[in-house]
């Protein structure tokens, strides 16, 4: 857990999602799971904004370079 302490949040999520997550991590693992998911989503948002900022100031990444980068990524 973060050294900055923990905040208690009350959120509402769809029943099926809550059930699936509890089944995966158990009631005691829920806080950690939610914190990781929140951090991941926040980082993804921040990265998107950063890349958009670079695109705006430097111009977009050439398509051929993006194609090469996509080819390097593992297939799911």
């Amino acid at each position: 857990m973060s050294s900055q302490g923990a905040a208690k949040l009350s959120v509402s999520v769809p029943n099926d999602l809550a059930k699936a997550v509890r089944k995966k991590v158990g009631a005691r693992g829920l806080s950690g799971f939610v914190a990781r998911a929140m951090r991941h989503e926040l980082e993804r948002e921040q990265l998107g904004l950063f890349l958009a900022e670079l695109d705006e100031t430097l111009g977009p990444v050439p398509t051929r370079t993006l194609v090469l980068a996509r080819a390097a990524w593992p297939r799911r």
Partner: protein
Amino acid sequence: MAAALILDAEALNAVAHASERPALAIRARAILQVARDEGALVRVPSPVLAAVCPGGPRDAPVNRVLNGRGLAVVGLGAGTARRAGALLSRAKMGSAHAVDAFVVATALEFGSAVIATGDPDDIARLSSGLRQIRIFAV
């Protein structure tokens, strides 16, 4: 387990100095875009900072990209450090390549990982046979 993009010193430097050297940052920006599209985590192993942070005001560009831009530094635990040592031994490489080994050992903590690197040959030697790791030269 999540997929990750791991940045080495050259990749991090390329992004941090994108405005001054835009041509050198193109490939790093491309792989970051793909990581973002794939929902991957972007991680910088803490030993990499030794190579890109000389101290003082010269750290500012790196500090800026590590502050709220979706790139996170990941600390090095004893287990990861020992794994790095084993990777060096396996590849018959000396401790001069320790930071590269830390990069590969960090990548092994994820289900699958792409390493963005300016030194693809050494990273390839260290990750030889590790199917969960791919390399992208920046």
